[in-house]
């Protein structure tokens, strides 16, 4: 019965290893070390990895058929491994199912994981396995490896192995699970956004964690350390003295299996594009004070909610290159933005992005429009950097003055190039920004008549990024004014005329 089950398992995974193959492999290893490890209570997979063996053999072994090469009656697999505390023996407390778990084959663990993945309902064509091991076990690994180095360092077989080092628990676990998972999930494993995360934790706190977490859990070649990970007397010296107590390596008090939990998730997807805002009552980001929403909607919600629903994600983050006030429209080419969507259940494609763009633009109320929505990688962030900071910004302000306009006004305004202005922190933001004087440059301006009015005009202007446009036009009670220079008299007259009268304005951002 047992034989048959084992054959079935081993036949399922090429290349298959039968129990006799395993025996042969074990016999080929240096027997003194091998027996020593067995006597230390190390499980078969940990032994294989200490000898640097890699590959699908880890998946094929059936715990029930492992024999101690010296004393065939004793099997280490019934006891908890002193190094991996059951991780590579597929013994653990399943936090999801809330019960102890003890199986003989990697396949059974893979089944658990595959069931979970199916339940979560993700669309995927590949998966990437992530493993997290408690520091306590990494420390045990490091201690054991240090001990092995000291005891067997001079032996020829060790000198050979030194190049490959031992295989880490994480890697050995991956060797065990990836093949069965690929079979069960019907796809290959690769570096991809869909992640399956296996987390092992242990109730016992670790001692002297620092040293082994540096190692990252792998016991690759280390120079002979002067101190062991507990920070006490060097292991090496105690081994030479013959006074080393093996039981110190593996305190009985820690002999409990780990807690195991597993979940899957997708790393974030990023959508990039540009948005236009037609409304003067829509803020850029969600703006709620004391449970009351300011404005009727926000750009980030209009775009984010649609995208989130379409990809079935958990949440989104909206990043825009710069911003405009709630009562300022955003027209022209539109403002670049990136929408980060976390943990999508579906995999978005270019076509997908096109469809979402259409959906948003076909909304009845036409508050916001999206252009060129597409999936972006890290290059998207470069585009964003370009969109703010250094750049010049262009605006159109609809301005009213109490004095009727004359032709000279239009010419004077057009003649001003790279005008320096000093802006004290506008009163409307003074409550939350530092009181400073910021010098800004108005690169050019152009006035345009408005049909049927001698007192309204459209002011086109191009300014340095960070200029407060409204305050530039109405003067903010004189707290925004031109810096002294030869244009001063000209601008002063003009500004005085404008702000010495009443002005009101509606600003539109363009660029």
């Amino acid at each position: 019965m047992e034989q048959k089950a084992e054959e079935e398992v081993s036949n399922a995974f090429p290349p298959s290893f039968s129990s006799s193959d395993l025996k042969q492999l074990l016999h080929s290893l240096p027997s003194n070390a091998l027996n020593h490890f067995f006597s230390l209570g190390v499980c078969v997979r940990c032994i294989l990895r200490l000898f640097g063996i890699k590959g699908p053999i880890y998946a094929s072994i059936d715990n029930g058929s492992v024999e101690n090469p010296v004393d065939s009656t004793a099997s280490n697999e019934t006891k908890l491994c002193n190094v991996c505390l059951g991780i590579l023996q597929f013994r653990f407390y399943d936090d999801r199912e809330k019960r102890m778990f003890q199986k003989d084959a990697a396949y059974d663990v893979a089944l658990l994981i595959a069931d979970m993945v199916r339940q979560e309902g993700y669309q995927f064509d590949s998966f990437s396995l992530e493993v997290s091991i408690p520091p306590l076990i990494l420390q045990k690994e490091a201690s054991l490896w240090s001990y092995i180095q000291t005891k067997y360092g001079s032996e020829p077989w060790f000198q050979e192995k030194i190049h490959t080092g031992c295989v880490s628990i994480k890697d050995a676990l991956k060797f065990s699970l990836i093949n069965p998972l690929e079979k069960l999930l019907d796809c290959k494993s690769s570096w991809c956004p869909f992640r399956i995360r296996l987390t092992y934790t242990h109730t016992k706190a670790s001692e002297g964690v620092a040293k082994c977490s540096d190692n990252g859990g792998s016991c690759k070649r280390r120079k002979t350390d002067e101190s062991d990970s507990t920070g006490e007397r060097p292991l090496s010296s105690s081994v030479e003295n013959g006074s080393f107590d093996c039981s110190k390596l593996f305190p009985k008090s820690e002999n409990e299996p780990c807690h195991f939990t597993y979940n899957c998730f997708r790393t974030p997807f990023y959508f990039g594009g540009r948005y236009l805002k037609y409304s003067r009552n829509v803020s850029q980001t969600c703006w709620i004070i004391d449970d009351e929403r300011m404005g009727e909607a926000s750009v980030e919600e209009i775009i984010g909610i649609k995208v989130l629903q379409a990809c079935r994600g958990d949440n989104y983050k909206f990043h825009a290159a710069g911003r405009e006030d709630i009562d300022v429209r955003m027209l022209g080419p539109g403002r670049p933005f990136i929408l980060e969507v976390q943990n999508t259940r579906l995999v978005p494609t270019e076509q997908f992005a096109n469809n979402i763009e259409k959906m948003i633009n076909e909304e009845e109320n036409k508050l916001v429009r999206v252009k060129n929505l597409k999936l972006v990688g890290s290059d998207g962030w470069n585009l964003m950097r370009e969109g703010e900071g250094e750049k010049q910004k262009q605006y159109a302000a609809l301005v009213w003055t109490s004095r009727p306009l004359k032709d000279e006004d239009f010419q004077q305004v057009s003649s001003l190039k790279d005008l320096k202005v000093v802006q004290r922190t506008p009163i409307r933001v003074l409550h939350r920004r530092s009181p400073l004087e910021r010098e800004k440059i108005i690169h050019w301006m152009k006035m345009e008549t408005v049909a049927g009015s001698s007192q309204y005009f459209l002011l086109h202007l191009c300014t340095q990024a960070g200029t407060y446009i409204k305050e530039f036009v109405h003067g903010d009670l004189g707290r925004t004014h031109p810096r002294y220079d030869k244009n001063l008299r000209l601008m002063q007259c003009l500004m005085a005329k404008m702000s010495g009268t009443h002005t009101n304005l509606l600003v539109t951002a363009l660029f």
Partner: protein
Amino acid sequence: MSDRITEESNSSETKELEQKQDKQKKEEEYEDEELPKLLLSDVQTLPSTPPSAVESNFAIYFALDFMKPRHDQYVYRHANGLCVIGLAPSHVAFKDEGGITSTDFNVGKSDRSGVKVTGKRKKNAQHFESNTALCKVSTKNDSYIVRCCVKGSLLEVNQQLIKQPELLNASADREGYIAIIMPKPVDWLKIKPSLVNLEEYKKLREVS
């Protein structure tokens, strides 16, 4: 067979190209025709005389006969809680011939124009009561004390008034503002009932 496939893939390539060109054309049209229209779309609803920037952004209040008869001051309160303090048009100082000739912020225990308030938390700002003196304005024959009207932190005084006191005569309601004060919400609620709004002010002072 293979010819047909290449033919089809060629035509789908040209289709893509066409779509791109179409898109570009639409964008150019938008820039040339639609955008200018959009920029002027508000024009239909424009009032002949819109409210001023101050009227649009602040709630306007007045403190009448503050501590002394005819010492009228205004308090412009922004939605963010900050208050701009200044002389109301009906202030007795404007009745003097020649108007206001000088200002002095060195009143009370310190020179109000000397303090440097820094940072988002407004470090170093002095905390004043509503009757604390802000500055002294002088005319040819007299001088008058201008007070805070609102209890709070003094964020800034209008330094321009030191060199250009005539700003008070020309535009006390704008460039001639005296100071900016940040009251705590509870202090504002306490003082508000004693202030009047623009409508009431116009009635009481018979100003147009």
